[in-house]
């Protein structure tokens, strides 16, 4: 039984982590594409149109990968988490089915039209198709976040005698206090990834002295979008989410902040330190007194519950992973703001395109927003443990009763092998698109 839950969790964690490489780019990138297309409509400068079409090619590769790795996510609710699906399908099935109907059809049909239909429909309609792709991808994000928000903070339900969750109030799913902050934070994080990708390609072109016109455009767009989105990511949305965790999941909050013992006169904020789970303390700690109480409650001396105040079975089951994920996310977010602020500063001084160390840094920064996005999701998901539906349904009660651990291990290994191949092919395709560049090719 223990094995079974472990492999089911590992398979879900692996497949969703790999899957989320793609949507986090498409959601943000679609906004940047719409921006370029809009600039083209306003100015009629061909460069913007080519930029929009170039990024739509990259979008398309990511979208394909997102589709083929996304279907296993939907199926796994049934294959590996059958008990969870049976008990909660009446509720989370609503938002998941809406995602299929309202966003995937929109995205897939208008993506094809954007790519193949420019000559057929004229520029205004072409802009509109781009906008609808953006709308579809954000609707998808919204509905997934609505699903997740219900698992983090269940609302609008009733539990029957047989343990089934029944929907009682549909609109409560969308007025869930967890949803809006989580959605905005997630979309901004996705915009950070996309801005960094755009900036990175720009830096690459400038450093290679190739496609210079586009290199400068991409770098400029990337760093401006990057600075704005990484600032908004920290404040107000990051702050808002942290307050939600403190309010609705105090045990997760204590674990992610690394507070082992409750301090009566205000809690310190931990910057660095490694959780020692045997002695229940942080090793090599660097912390600033009272800041956490202030950030959370705007009161320097307010008490924050430490992990000592919770029963073992209420605490997340992997505290170090939660703690590190959170600190990696926050640490990277801070670095992003610093680098993007520096880049915008030099952009305004008109020096950005010549400072090589900064260009190299921006180019190689590109994996880190992905890491920050994924660790951010680890914070949400590890923090929710040991529950699937917070406080109500344990993770161990959600797995499929009929699927043995051997079968899950087999499929997990299969997914690992297949996704390795997909990852390689993805890099080849994106590399090829970047190599070809945004200048239209003569056939």
């Amino acid at each position, binding site marked *: 039984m223990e094995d079974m839950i472990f492999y089911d969790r590992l398979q879900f964690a692996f497949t969703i982590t790999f899957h989320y490489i793609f949507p986090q780019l498409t959601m943000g990138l679609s906004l940047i594409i719409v921006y370029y297309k809009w600039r083209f409509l306003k100015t009629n400068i061909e460069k913007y149109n080519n930029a929009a079409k170039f990024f739509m090619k990259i979008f398309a590769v990511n979208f394909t990968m997102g589709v083929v790795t996304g279907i296993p996510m939907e199926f796994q609710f049934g294959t590996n988490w059958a008990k969870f699906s049976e008990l909660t399908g009446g509720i989370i099935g609503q938002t998941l*089915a809406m995602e299929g109907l309202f966003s995937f059809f929109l995205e897939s049909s208008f993506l*094809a039209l954007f790519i193949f*239909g420019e000559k057929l429909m004229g520029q205004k309609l072409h802009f509109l198709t781009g906008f609808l792709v953006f709308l579809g991808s954000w609707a998808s994000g919204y509905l997934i976040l609505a699903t997740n928000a219900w698992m983090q903070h269940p609302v609008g339900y009733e539990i029957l005698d047989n343990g089934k969750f029944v929907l009682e109030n549909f609109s409560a799913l969308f007025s869930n206090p967890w949803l809006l902050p989580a959605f905005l934070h997630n979309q901004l994080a996705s915009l950070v990834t996309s801005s960094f990708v755009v900036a990175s390609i720009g830096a690459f072109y400038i450093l290679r002295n190739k496609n210079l016109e586009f290199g400068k455009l991409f770098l400029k767009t990337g760093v401006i979008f990057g600075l704005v989105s990484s600032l908004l990511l920290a404040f107000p949305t990051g702050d808002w989410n942290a307050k939600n965790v403190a309010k609705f999941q105090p045990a997760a909050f204590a674990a992610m902040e690394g507070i082992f013992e409750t301090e009566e006169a205000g809690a310190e904020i931990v910057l660095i330190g490694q959780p020692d789970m045997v002695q229940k303390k942080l090793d090599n700690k660097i912390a600033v007194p009272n800041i956490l109480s202030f950030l959370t409650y705007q009161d320097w001396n307010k008490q924050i519950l430490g992990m000592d105040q919770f029963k073992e079975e209420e605490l997340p089951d992997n505290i170090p992973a939660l703690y590190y994920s959170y600190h990696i996310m926050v640490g990277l977010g801070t670095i992003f703001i610093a680098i993007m602020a520096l880049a915008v500063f030099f952009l305004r001084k008109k020096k950005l395109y010549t400072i090589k160390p900064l260009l190299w840094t921006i180019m190689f920064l590109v994996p880190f927003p992905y890491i920050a996005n994924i660790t951010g999701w680890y914070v949400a998901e590890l923090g929710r443990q040991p529950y699937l539906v917070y406080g109500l349904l344990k993770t161990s009660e959600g797995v499929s009763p009929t699927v043995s651990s051997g079968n899950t291990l087999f499929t997990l290994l299969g997914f690992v092998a297949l996704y390795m191949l997909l990852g390689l092919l993805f890099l080849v395709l994106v590399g090829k698109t970047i190599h070809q560049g945004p200048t239209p090719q003569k056939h």
Partner: protein
Amino acid sequence: MEVFWYIIISVVLAIFFILDGYNFGTGIIHLFFAKTEKDKEVIAKSAGLFWDFNEVWLVACGGMLFMAFPTFYASVFSGFYLPLIIVLWLIVFRAIGLELRSQFNFEMWKSIWDKSFGVSSLLLALFFGIALGNVVRGVNLGGIENGTATFEPHYFFLPLWDSSFSPLSETPGVIDWFTIIIGLISVVTLAIHGANWIILKTNSSINNKLKSIIFKLNILLAALTFISLLVWQIVNPNSLDNFIDKPYLILFPVIYFFGLFGLFFIKKLKKDIHGFILSTLVILGGITSSLASLFPVILPSTNNISEPLTIYNTAASEYGLSVALGWGIIGLILVAVYSIIQKKLLNGKVDKMDYGH
């Protein structure tokens, strides 16, 4: 309300098989009959332009099933664990085959991804048919062995096959001689459907040859249909009851046989679209007849101890279903609008369309 959702989901499922079905069929034809590079390219393109939109119907179908019949979703998806995961992998190979072949201009690269597209399309057609066969035959609900249940009565776990390969075994597997027959029907039907799609959407050099291939495949389909009807009664003795109780349901098998019969005249049809409509009718009639013969059961039990799964004992709450009907109708209307726009703009033969992404 359960019946409404049952109908909506069945329609969505049928649309998935009709739309993605032509892609599977295109893959099968591509694998066996496309010889020159020009034909291979244009046939792959006739599938490659549309697969993702078509596949969304599967996602939509899954999502709605999850929402409306969560117990069925949980039971079936975990019970058919291995075949379903294998289907997921095949879907990946099908998709990357289509997306990758045109990316580089080496012969070897193209032939690798052509095989990836063709073989996975063939196996997907086979597996989806086998899946339908399993639903008709039923499964060992509750995992009954020697009269005692291993699981709750609405759960089961199917091995890929049972050593007897017989649908009448106490513990039938996913693959047995009955489900293989249904699987073959699916392969042949979708191959015909795919061939019709190629004729409709391309100017490939094999278009004329495909008509005689359709004719031959249709003879095979008629023979397989005949065999399946003979054994159907053995596997599921109640399968005619619904048609006797509600004679109007006979419309569905009539649709099937109309399509099947019409396809014998494939060479005389004036318009390419007519062939495609006929194979569409075969798929539509086949799926709806199978589902209608079971109604309201959606998964029969092969033992006498566990109750079969029906739309009533697996459905979500009345409130949930009725709220969902509201957004479901709006959503489906929107989907219809997108489909019409897409069809208008990507109308005609695909040979000249730019497939450069």
